C-alpha cells in the first residue's frame, strides 16, 4: 500500500501504487503546466487532436477498435485545474490480466497505446492534419459553450472567475471561445511540442503488476523524451496570501431557470502557519455532511434548499458554499449562512459537532485507498502542492485538532464573493 515514486528523468516521474484489491489496472499520465490565458485554450485543444490517430494507429476508429479488443479498455482525457495549473490527464483502465478469457497481457499493451497517443501523434512535417484541426476546434468550442449546461457548476465557476479576476485560478480550464478561432496549425503544433518538451510529466499506475518490468518498459518507451525543469506553480498553505476584504463582492446573473444557485466564496486568511487541518474540520462542521450547520439550518430547519453544503479547496485556501434555493429566498438564505459563519467564529458548536466532523473527514481519508481513481487523485494533489503526507499521519493530524484550533481558524475566514444565478 502507498505510493512508490521513481524518477524516470528530471521532470518525469513514475508513481506505482501496488494493490490487488481491484479487478482493474488504472494508468494515468498527467502533463502539468501553469494556467495562463495565452496557452490555456491551445492546451485544451491538444487532447482533442491526439485522439484522432497515432503513427501506429492511424485513425480514431483504429484506436477505438484496438481498445475494444483489449476487453474494452477505457481511454479518456480530462482537463483539470489543480491550483494555478492546468493538468491534462490521460488515462486507460483495463481489466486485470487475471480476468481475461485467454490470459492476455493487457497492462503493457495499454501503456503502449497510451504513450502512443500522447507522444506519437499522427503528424506530417511537424503539423497536425488540417481537416482534423478544423473539426476539433469546433468540438472544443462546443465544450466551452456547454459551460452553462450544469447550472450548479456554472455558478461555482462564475464565482471563482469573479473572485480571481479571470487570472490564475480564475481562468476557465477549457479556455475561451474567442481564442479558439485564432489557433492555426503552426501555433497548435508549437504548443504541442512545447507541452511535450516542457510540462511536468507524472505517470501513475495502480493495480497488480511487476514493478521492475514496468519501470524498464516506461524508461524504454520514454528514451527519446528529454529531461526538463519543472515549471509549475506550487499552491499550498504557505503560498496563498489573502487580503482582508473591505467590501464583499456581490454579483447576480440571470438565466432562464426555476431554481436559483447561490455560491459563496470564502477566503482563509493566511496567519503564517499551517491551519489546513483546522480549516478542514471547520469546513466539515459548517457544510461537509448531513450533520453540518448548513444542511441542518438552511435545509432541515428552514426548508429552503435541497442542496446546502460547502467544500474546502486546500491549495487555494478557499471554501465554497453552494445552495439551490427558490429565487425570492436569496436574502433569507444569505442571512442564515452568515449566521452560521458567525456561530463558528463565536465557537458556538458542540463537542459532538467537532467529533462528528473529525470522524466524517477520517472516514473519507480511509476510503482513499479503497478507490483506485480517488487514490491517484490524492497523490496527484500532493505532487503538485509539494506536500507529501502518509495516510496514517493525515488521520492523526485530524484527530489532534481541538475546539480552539477550529475557533482560531474561524477568525481567519471571511466572505470574499457572493454569486447568485437567478431566473
Amino acid at each position, binding site marked *: 500500500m502507498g505510493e512508490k515514486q521513481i524518477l524516470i528523468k528530471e521532470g518525469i516521474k513514475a508513481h506505482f501504487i501496488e494493490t*490487488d*484489491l481491484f*479487478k*482493474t489496472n488504472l494508468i494515468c499520465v498527467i502533463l502539468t503546466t501553469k494556467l495562463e490565458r495565452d496557452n490555456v485554450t491551445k492546451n485544451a485543444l491538444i487532447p482533442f487532436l491526439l485522439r484522432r490517430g497515432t503513427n501506429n494507429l492511424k*485513425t*480514431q*476508429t483504429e484506436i*477505438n*477498435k484496438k*481498445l*475494444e*479488443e483489449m*476487453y*474494452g*479498455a*477505457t481511454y479518456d482525457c480530462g482537463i483539470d485545474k489543480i491550483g494555478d495549473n492546468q493538468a491534462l490527464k490521460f488515462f486507460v*483502465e483495463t*481489466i486485470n490480466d*487475471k*480476468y481475461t*478469457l485467454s490470459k492476455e497481457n493487457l497492462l503493457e499493451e495499454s501503456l503502449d497505446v497510451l504513450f502512443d497517443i500522447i507522444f506519437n501523434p499522427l503528424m506530417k512535417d511537424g503539423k497536425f492534419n488540417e481537416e482534423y484541426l478544423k*473539426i476539433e476546434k*469546433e*468540438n472544443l468550442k*462546443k465544450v466551452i*459553450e456547454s*459551460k*452553462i*449546461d450544469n447550472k450548479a457548476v456554472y455558478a461555482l465557476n462564475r464565482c471563482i472567475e469573479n473572485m480571481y479576476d479571470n487570472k490564475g485560478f480564475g481562468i476557465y480550464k477549457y479556455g475561451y471561445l474567442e481564442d479558439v478561432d485564432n489557433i492555426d496549425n503552426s501555433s497548435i503544433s508549437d504548443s504541442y511540442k512545447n507541452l511535450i518538451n516542457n510540462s511536468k510529466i507524472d505517470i501513475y499506475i495502480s493495480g497488480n503488476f511487476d514493478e521492475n518490468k514496468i519501470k524498464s518498459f516506461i524508461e524504454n518507451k520514454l528514451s527519446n523524451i528529454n529531461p526538463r525543469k519543472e515549471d509549475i506553480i506550487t499552491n499550498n498553505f504557505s503560498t496563498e496570501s489573502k487580503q482582508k476584504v473591505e467590501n464583499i463582492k456581490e454579483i447576480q446573473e440571470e*438565466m*432562464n*431557470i*426555476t*431554481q436559483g444557485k447561490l455560491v459563496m466564496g470564502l477566503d482563509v486568511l493566511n496567519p503564517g502557519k499551517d491551519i489546513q487541518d483546522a480549516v478542514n474540520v471547520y469546513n466539515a462542521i459548517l457544510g461537509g*455532511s*448531513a*450533520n453540518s450547520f448548513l444542511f*441542518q439550518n438552511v*435545509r*432541515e430547519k428552514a*426548508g*429552503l*434548499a*435541497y*442542496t446546502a453544503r460547502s467544500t474546502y479547496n486546500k491549495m487555494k485556501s478557499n471554501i465554497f458554499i453552494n445552495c*439551490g*434555493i*427558490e429565487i425570492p429566498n436569496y436574502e433569507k438564505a444569505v442571512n442564515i449562512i452568515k449566521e452560521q459563519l458567525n456561530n463558528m467564529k463565536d465557537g458556538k458548536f458542540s463537542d*459532538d459537532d467537532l*467529533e*462528528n466532523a473529525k*470522524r*466524517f473527514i*477520517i*472516514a473519507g481519508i*480511509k*476510503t482513499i485507498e*479503497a*478507490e*483506485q481513481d480517488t487514490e491517484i487523485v490524492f497523490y496527484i494533489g500532493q505532487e503538485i502542492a509539494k506536500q507529501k503526507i502518509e495516510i496514517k499521519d493525515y488521520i492523526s493530524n485530524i484527530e489532534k485538532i481541538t475546539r480552539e484550533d477550529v475557533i482560531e481558524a474561524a477568525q481567519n475566514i471571511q466572505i470574499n464573493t457572493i454569486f447568485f444565478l437567478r431566473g
Partner: protein
Amino acid sequence: MQIIENDKIKEIMYKEKLDNGMDIIIIPKKGEQKKYIIWGVNFGSVDNKFILGDSNEVTKIPDGIAHYLEHKMFEQRSGINSLDALCALGVDANAFTTNNFTAYLYECTDNFYEALDEFMDYVQNPYYTTENVEKERGIIEQEIAMYDDEPEWQLYMNTMKLLYNKHPMRIDIAGTKESIAEINENTLYTIYNNFYTPENMAIVIVGDFKPDEILQEIKKRIIKKASNVKITRVTEDEPEEICGKKMEVKMDISRPIFMVAYKVKMKKENMVKKDLALEILGNIILGKSSNLYQKLYNEGLISSEFGFDFEYARDYSHFVIEGSSEEPEKVIEEIKNEIDFYLNQGINEENFERIKKKVYGDMVKDYNDVRTIGNQTMSYYFKGINLFDFFEEFDSISKEYTEQILKEVFDENKKVISIVKNKE
C-alpha cells in the same frame, strides 16, 4: 445458506431466506476496506395503484409518495434524525427511490455494527407527524425544481410520456408540486404498513465479512411483525402501441440533446440474454468504432459518444439512445439508416466477436466497487435476476440470437423521439 459461485470473476455469493420471508444476500470481499449494506423495498414510483386485502376497492395514491416516504424515514420518535446519527458515526449514509424500488444504505470503513443498530432500527420504525411531514414539503419542492432545470431529465421524462399511454413510467419519481401537496402522515403510514413488509424487502451486504456471522447480526436486529396484509398491485393495461411520436421543448442549454427510444413488447423470456444482446448491438451500431459514429463525427454532427440503455422491469421495457448535436433531426435520420443497414445486412462476425469481448470487459469493470456491486445486485434482484447470471449467460450469446433481437426491438412503429433544443 445457498452458495452461488462464479468462476469467471472469481466471486461468491451467499443467499438466505429468513423465516419472515425476507432475502439476505451476502457478497464477501476479502481484504476490502469498505463495507456496504443496502436495504431494498419492492416499492417505487410506478406502484401507484393497489388493492388491500380482499376488498375490491382500488386505492390510488399521490404521485411521488415512494420518494416522499424515503425522505421521511430518517426521523425518529426520540427526536433523533437517523441520517445525522449515522453521519456522526462517520459512515456515508443515504437513500434513493427509483421507478421500481426504494433503497436505504450506508458505506463505511469503521463502526459498521454501531451503524447497523441505527440503520436497522430506523428502517423498521417509521415516525410521521403532521409537522415533520409538512416541513419536508419545501425541501422536496426544491428537489423537484432542481430537476426541472436539468435538460437531461426533461428529455428522459418526455421520452417516457411518448412511450407510455397509461403506465406510471410517465410520472416523475418525485411527483409534482401539486401531487405531493396531497401527502400527509396517514398516507405515508398506509404505504409503510402495506409495502414495507419482510417478504417485500431484501438486504444486500458487500465487504470483508464472514457470511454466517453477518447473517446472525442481521437476524438479531430484525423486528418480528405480524404480517398478513395481502397487496395486489394494480397495473394499467398498457397497449403495445406508443403514445406519441415526437416531443420538442426549449431550454437554456448550449446545444440540442435528443433521445430516441423503442418500446419493447413484454413476454416471457430470458431477460439477461436479451440485455446482453442489446448491449452488444448498441456498441456495434452506435459505439465509438462504429461506421455511424465515425461518419457523423467527421461531418461535425456529433462530438461525443451516444449513450444507450435497455431499461426493463416486471411490466415495461424499452431501449433508449441519447446524444447531442446541432442538427438532431439529421442525426436521428442517420441512426435510422444505420439500423436499417444492419437489419438488411446482418452483423459482421469480426465486429461481433470484438464487441463481445468489450462487453465482457465492461462487466468485469463494474465488479470493482462495493457500492456498485451492492446497488446492481439489488436492482437486478427486484427483476428476479442474479448478477452472476450475466457472466453465466455470456458465452451463450450467439450472432444469430443477437440478430433476432435486433429485428425484434428496432421497430419503426414503436419508436419515439424527444428533443430539447436551445433557445436562440
